[in-house]
């Protein structure tokens, strides 16, 4: 899939993917990330919980014979868990060659946010979720919060994983 996107890139206008952002919402806030990371948008399939890992890593799903881990972005951002419903989506992304599913409330659309409309985020306090935010993008009257996907899987999180009793 990612290869398709790449060849797209080359075949058509080089700038096809540039400045394009996928927008989704959590609670009332609008977030966005660069569309080049996105492989696919899916309805949420059955999740198999992997026990003993961080709570935001919900488990694995089966996508056409591939086992892909899924992350609940709400939990990652320290929001309260919200039960999944029919419109819950999985955004399939690829980060450093690793496929990952992101569970989000609602997917909005793909928007073009030109470079000049992007302002690097000021240091927004010490809130945990602020680490994932790198900038804001102005789209008309609204502001999208731009997130750095790589940060979702940083090393320090690996150590937060719950210890297993009896170890």
């Amino acid at each position, binding site marked *: 899939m990612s290869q398709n996107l790449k060849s797209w890139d080359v075949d058509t206008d080089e700038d096809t993917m540039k400045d394009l952002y996928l927008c989704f919402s959590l609670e009332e806030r609008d977030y966005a990330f660069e569309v080049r990371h996105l492989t696919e948008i899916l309805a949420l399939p059955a999740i198999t*919980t992997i026990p003993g890992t961080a709570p935001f890593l919900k488990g694995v799903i089966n996508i056409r*014979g591939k086992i892909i*881990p899924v992350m609940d972005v709400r939990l990652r951002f320290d929001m309260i868990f919200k039960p999944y419903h029919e419109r819950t989506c999985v955004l399939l992304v690829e980060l450093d060659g690793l496929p990952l599913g992101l569970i989000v409330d609602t997917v909005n659309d793909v928007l073009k946010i030109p470079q000049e409309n992007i302002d690097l985020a000021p240091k927004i306090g010490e809130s945990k979720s602020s680490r994932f935010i790198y900038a804001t993008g102005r789209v008309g009257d609204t502001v999208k919060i731009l997130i750095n996907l790589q940060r979702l899987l940083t090393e320090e999180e690996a150590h937060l994983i719950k210890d297993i009793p009896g170890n």
Partner: protein
Amino acid sequence: MERDDVLEYLLEARETLENIEKDLLHFEKSTLDGSRVDRDLLDTLFRHFHTIKGSSGFFGLTAIVKMAHAAENLLDYLRKNPEDQDEDTLEFLITALDYLNELVEHEESSPSGGDFFSEEQILFLNKLNQKNDSIRLRYMQTPEEVPASQANAEFGLFGDDSANENPKEEFGLFTNIDEPTIAKEFGLFINDSPPKPNEEFGLFLKPDLNTTKERIPKPEENLKNEKKTITKKDIRIDTDKLDSLLDIVGEIVITEPMVTDHPDISKLKLESFQKTALQLKKLIRNLQEITLSLRMVPIAGVFSRMERLVRDTAKKTGKQVKLIISGEDTEIDKSIIEEMYDPLVHIIRNAIDHGLETLEERKEAGKQPQGTIQLTATQSGKEVWIEVRDDGKGLSRERISNKAISLGLIGHSDAETLEDKEVWEFLFYPGFSTAKEVTDLSGRGVGLDVVRKNVTTLKGFVDVFSVFGQGTTFLIRVPLTLAIIEGLVVRKADTYFILPSIDVKESIYISNEPINELYKNNHSIQYRTNQISLVDINLLFGKDSDLNDQRTLKEKYVIVTESHEKQMGIVFDEILGSQSIVIKPISPIFKNINGLAGCTILGNGHAGLILDVRKLISQHLSSVTI
């Protein structure tokens, strides 16, 4: 020259060298029992060395060429003077083979333009060449066989006139051989022009017309033979390609029931559809079997490498050892075979070094002077059993338990009551060695613990049996393949788990069985004559056990699992049945996962979690004592 081509050639060369090794060991057997090797074997050996020489010359690997050439000369002499086969010549050939292996290995790891890289290699080559020279001299001095002038004319082929007077110098040719000469010489074979090879062969022949005539058809025969073997040869496949094929086939296997038992059609009466579906099922099963078998190779490759090991170890220890190999046709996953080499080397070395007695000891014990090591492979269900049995002195219970006491593993009083089997287990304890002194062969800190670790990573077992005075047997049991396992699919709440069938002992229904709660999260149940720990999978993954709620316990299933003789019951809601499971790795995003061996996709489209039962048992039992 492309590096890839060279690497490919070196792989081929390794194969040829392996063949040489096999043949040389035959050679040795006949040398030792006094019978002479037949001409065919000498020819084959000659041909192998010749192939190595020719192809290496093509790739400009001069050191290999020189070494193979010298060995070839020696063999050529033996072909004509079979009565001169002795241990000395054999030793030369074996050492030459070792150096060739070394050179090939060196070229693979650090390409250096194909030259010698150690003093010993050059020294040995000179020694071998001297040996060749001296036998050639002797051989030429036998007047009725080789008139001197003719011999000179023969060597004149190389155009070295000084040879006329001093044959010794002439032979120096082969040591100082310069590249163009080699190129020319080997060019003969590369161009495949038939008359020239004859000439080359003639080079080392007695200039006796009769023999020459006899020999002439040989090279052609050789060529033919080689071609024949080539057509039978396997092709090499990139393992990545094989793995993706296996993946796809695995997916087809999984998807098949998803299609044929699709809920949309399950209520329809579709007789002919069912028939076709059945046909498809059969075909898919065949496809799966064949794909799996692609990874399977006979264990003979590893076993035959043991012959050399036995020979060398026997020599070093001064013991007489006979190796009896059987079941070498048994097929096993290639990746497993490769992992079996080190454990086998270790066990066999131990068997010869510690297990077998010396000649005198054997005589005293009324045994054959020659010790026997039996190396056997058998397929048993989904496992391959590899057995190394020696007829040596057996394990000394006293020494092992004393050592265990001195290491603080057991108390004095325990030592008496332990069963033999439990005593042997100490051998697998890290750092446990009963060897009195560190020898060349063992006692270097690599112990049986490493053997067990290697085998355990392959999901296998190592066991030891011994009767004092009669010998010791090591039994390694490994699964046939790692990519697909037989598993029992079970459900706990919404999650599907797979327990590898080899770890499952029994499943029981616990509606009426009494469950003892020892304290919170620690339950046990009577299983046969034992109380075994009963756990809830939640507990293993860090949650509270729902076994605390006795009411929910009714109508649940306990799967009794076993690892290293330790048993544990795991409670599940439902058992769905046993099936072949294609193992898929869990994403590296999940770090520090304990107790899971992988994932799989089940027929219903759910991802299932494969439990690493052995890890679970050892983890759980180390934290809980009943």
